[in-house]
């Protein structure tokens, strides 16, 4: 994470060698993005692709997967397929919001830490303490103290993700600060704010993008885990974790209630990680060569 190449490298490379050639060289990014695009389309078009995820028909309780109920039904006779399609909305919203919030806040704090010694000493101690708390427990504590809502879940998952982003940004800032061109800028009287925005900020972008994908994947897993434990998204909202949580009681006779949302969850996280790994390899060739 020392010096960081320009964030525009893959774009520029694509322009030079043609999009198709670039895609052929980065199959993981292409595969991961394709899966994510399909999921996003399904999430947006959910009202047209699926039936009402909340409507329940007691006659159709615990039906096996069939032509009418592709993924079977749960113990209330709700269609698992519809709930899984609507669940994609929650997972993607949580993943994207947490990634955006955690990177934005982590970036701001990380730059402050890297640039101002005094802020650094205090903030890094706070971050060390926060990192000692297992993230799922921190989220559980926040959720226990507040009324359950999707917003609270997003905030509760974001807070424990921040310290790692701060550490990353701080390490980049510290290494960039030692570069001669920063010294030159300081010597020629450039103000601190301008140095940060014009010279330091651009260097953090490439590693931040990579980190954001991992935060996104981890947030989606945490949301599912919290909902599974009953401390996440309110049960009336069909999220994958909630669907799995409902399936717990009748797991032995109706495993499909857990299986389908579980597989969707795994595929989503896999796709995000593929994009992340691919971006890491193109944006930071030094690591790529070693792996």
């Amino acid at each position, binding site marked *: 994470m020392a010096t960081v190449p320009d964030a525009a490298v893959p774009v520029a490379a694509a322009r030079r060698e043609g999009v198709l050639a670039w895609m052929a060289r980065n199959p993981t990014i292409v595969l991961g993005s394709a899966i994510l695009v399909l999921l996003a389309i399904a999430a947006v078009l959910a009202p047209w692709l699926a039936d009402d995820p909340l409507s329940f028909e007691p006659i159709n309780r615990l039906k096996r997967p069939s032509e009418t109920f592709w993924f079977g039904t749960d113990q209330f006779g709700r269609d698992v397929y519809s709930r899984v399609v609507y669940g994609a909305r929650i997972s993607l919203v949580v993943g994207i919001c947490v990634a955006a919030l955690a990177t934005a806040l982590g970036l701001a704090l990380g730059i402050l830490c890297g640039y101002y010694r005094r802020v650094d000493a205090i903030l890094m101690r706070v971050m060390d303490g926060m990192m*000692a708390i297992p993230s*799922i427990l921190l989220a559980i504590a*926040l959720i*226990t*103290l507040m*009324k359950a809502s999707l917003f609270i879940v997003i905030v509760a998952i974001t807070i424990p993700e921040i310290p790692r982003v701060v550490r990353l940004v701080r390490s980049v800032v510290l290494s960039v600060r030692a570069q001669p061109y920063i010294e030159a800028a300081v010597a020629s009287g450039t103000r601190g704010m301008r140095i940060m925005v014009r010279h330091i900020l651009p260097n953090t972008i490439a590693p931040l993008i990579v980190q954001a994908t991992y935060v996104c994947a981890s947030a989606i897993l945490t949301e599912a885990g919290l909902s599974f434990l009953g401390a996440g998204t309110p049960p009336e909202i069909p999220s994958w974790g909630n669907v799995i949580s409902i399936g717990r009681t009748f797991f032995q006779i109706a495993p499909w209630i857990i*299986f389908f949302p579980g597989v969707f969850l795994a595929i989503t996280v896999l796709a995000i990680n593929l994009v992340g790994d691919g971006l890491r390899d193109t944006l930071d060739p030094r690591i790529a060569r070693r792996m």
Partner: protein
Amino acid sequence: MTAYIVRRLLATIPVMAVVALFVFFLLHLTPGDPAAVIAGDDATPAEIEGVRHKLGLDRPIYEQFGIYVGNLLRGELGTSIFSNLPVIALVKQRLEPSVVLAVSTLLVAVVFAIPMGVIAAWKARTAIDRIVMGFSVLGFAVPVFLVGYLLIYLFAIELRWLPVQGYKPLAQGVGQTLRSVVLPAFALGMVYMALIARITRASVLEVLSEDYIRTAHAKGVATRSVLLRHALKNAAVPIVTVIGIGFALLISGVVITETVFNIPGLGRLTVDAILKRDYPIIQGLIILFAAVKVIVNLMIDISYTFFDPRIRY
């Protein structure tokens, strides 16, 4: 060395102080009335007052803080709102299954992942390497509850080799205990294996390009010995570091795994506390888990000197 250990021990004090402060202010800085939220939607004003009194929220904040810090320094983690039992007593009742699960998971992960990583590095860019790396990528993505339920379905319901759920205490025989933790340990160990295998491969691969490895080969040392004695030992520091980083995953994973497998450990204590909104229990568990994590990281830092004598403090 002793000076270093003392210094590292002292450095854990501010970390734990921040954890304690954080947990205290979480209760006071959250918007809304925590007493009302904890008491639940159907609570009467009197019940809300009762919760407020039990949490000490009716006292001035400096007094609350004094009591809280005093209790912590005496090793008291608070009292459950509902059962009125000290959190420490509740933790003691539930400790054994969680420790057994965590230790078995760690063993399973290390025993499987390190050979996988070493072989992948040795056979780098071959089919074996691709399979190990593929497994590693998959291991990061598949949530522990999916692995858990798939394992239960396959080995307990279809094949009937192992119990479906539950935990047999050590007092009833070690064999029975092991049988009851095999599936949970593998389910929880999956992420861990992925993490350790990946870092083992990367770190052994790096060592394999060193001159002394070529020398060892040249003087006729057997491949097995080169890999284990020369390569793995020199690659140990990053591997041990990642085991420490992964310990956080392990703690979060224990909570979920215990719910999947119906194991009456600390994870179940957490989940019961969530359902009853018993904040003091969650608060106590956070401090406890954070302390365990800090101690594990401390032990790992100290272990570096053992793996790499070049590191001196």
